[in-house]
């Protein structure tokens, strides 16, 4: 579903170039569950933003569903985000003045879905994440876990193919976090491609596949079960600058 080839992204930070992604080559299959780990500043959020078409790579090729999206203009990228990609953020990013249902309806508003249908679909999604009774509550009347579940409902209400989650449990207590992860796993089981950026080994462990980034390079590739190796790598600092071989490359 996703093919990244030699993706580079360099930021200018106060006149100093910062190489956030260096020649990242990766393939993500449809329905896959991938976890991205790495220390702060390793480039994992940048990779997520590039995957979500919120950020453009400086070099390299990004194919989504067989289509090269590197050259698309802003409007085309908006359409792509609207219909193909869902986002879940660590800080939920709910619009505070809107109710849970209205927050879930938001992507459908931009997609031009008629009001009655919006309402119906939003309620169905809220029911799916166990929040139907809280539909008319505003974010400040919801717990952290509930807010993230609203965000999940919003991210998936237009039935995207790809869900990108940036530390989805980062602001949640254990029980709420587990609840959110269970919902994510269920969605993935239903065929949704899931990419999760996380610091949390417990979250990464659930993924079928795991990559570790350091200084913009992919330094580890493995399965979710290999989480201990990844954690060890992260704690020792090994592999710095020593990129793991990219899939499909000689």
């Amino acid at each position, binding site marked *: 579903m996703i093919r990244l080839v030699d993706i580079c992204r360099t930021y200018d930070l106060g006149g100093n170039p910062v190489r956030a992604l260096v020649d990242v080559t990766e393939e993500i299959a449809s329905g896959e569950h991938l976890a991205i780990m790495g220390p702060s500043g390793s480039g994992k959020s940048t990779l997520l933003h590039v995957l979500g078409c*919120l950020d453009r790579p400086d070099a390299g090729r990004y194919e989504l569903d067989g289509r090269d999206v590197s050259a698309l203009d802003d*409007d085309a990228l908006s359409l792509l985000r609207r219909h193909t990609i869902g986002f879940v953020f660590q800080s939920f990013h709910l619009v505070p*003045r809107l109710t849970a249902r209205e927050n879930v309806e938001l992507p459908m508003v931009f997609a031009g879905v008629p009001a009655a249908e919006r309402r119906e679909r939003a309620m169905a999604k809220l029911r799916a994440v166990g929040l139907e009774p809280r539909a008319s509550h505003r974010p400040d009347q919801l717990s952290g876990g509930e807010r993230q579940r609203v965000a999940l409902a*919003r991210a998936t209400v237009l039935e995207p193919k790809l869900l990108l989650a940036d530390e989805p449990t980062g602001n949640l207590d254990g029980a709420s976090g587990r609840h959110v992860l269970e919902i994510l796993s269920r969605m993935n089981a239903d065929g949704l491609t899931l990419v999760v950026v996380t610091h949390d080994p417990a979250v990464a462990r659930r993924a079928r596949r795991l990559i570790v980034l350091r200084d913009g390079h992919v330094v580890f590739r493995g399965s979710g079960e290999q989480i201990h190796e990844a954690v060890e790598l992260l704690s020792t600092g090994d592999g710095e600058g020593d990129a793991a071989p990219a899939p499909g490359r000689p």
Partner: protein
Amino acid sequence: MTAGDVVGFAFRALRGHRLRTALSLLGVSIGVAAVITLTALGEGARRYVLAQFAAVGSNMVVVLPGRAETTGAMPGFGGTPRDLTLDDALAVARGVPGVDKAAPLVIGTETVAFGARRRQVAVAGSSHEMLEVRRLSVARGRFLPEQPWDRGAPVVVLGSKLAAELFPGAEPLGQVVRIGDWRMRVIGVTAPRGQQLGMDMDDVAIVPVATAMQMFDRSSLFRLLLQARSHHRLDTVKAATLKLLSERHGEEDVTVITQDAVLSAFDSILGALTRALGGLAAISLAVAGVGIMNVMLVSVSERTREIGLLKALGAGRRQVLAAFLAEAVLISSAGGVLGLALGFAAVQVLVAIFPALPASPPAWAVAAAFLMSVAVGAVFGVVPARRATRLDPVAALGGR
């Protein structure tokens, strides 16, 4: 995203900042109310003046001594106009076709006294025809007698106010009043008429023109008032009068004006005044627009994360632009509606305080004020809305 969605989204955003929204809205409404009130005042003044002229009669031609061009010259050096005599007036009344009525007019100021009660008023010397030419009516007694203009008589017709002041609770008819050194019998009292072209027709003493000329030692009339038979003969009456008097005087040394000319001059002057007042008030609308822009810029910087989110959710540039522009237009047009209500209320108060002034905002001012208020939001909302669309989604999500 339908127009209803855009407005709904904007409305919710504004509701989240009630005080800020209310203050920007107030700015616009003050601007619109100022336009409505000031143009209503200007229009009121215009209507008042036009009504004054209409009350005098719409077919009037006025002859005054002296050419308009020669005024301002030093007296005694050729600038003194030749007299407009009673004979001139008679010649015009008899010799100019299309003249229905002619009334000579001499004006002076004198003290009118009855017993111990004295009052300094304008004394108008005229003839029986003045009753119709100046649209006066008699409340009691009769008006000046029909007699040759060159014959004086010791009679006076009092304005209603003057009669009430000199004869409180008493019958003035048949009484003898003193006007300066003259003793005059009161033969009539006019009905209340109010101000007429700056002259209080209720506080005036009207005497035969020959008497007034003697009283004030005048050889010239102040004005000769002519009433044309119909409106479309005004120009021919004017031309014929000018021709006849020029022949009599050997030169063109009188000024003949039709009421239409004066009316249209006043109309255009007061119309321009109204537009100028509206324009001045519109400046406050522009200031209100700057206020909206300020509030919207603050709103965009406060809602950076939200804008990032909207972009992440797939909102296109035009949708973000529309959402923020709609907020500005919503503030300004709501302010416009409130301003119209405030403006009309202020006009009502004005009319209650000054009942004589027919203050009412002209339709063009109402339409322009409202359309301007909407336009102010659209124009001053563009910069903040464009700023919102240009935000980088990644930076915006991070609150930068």
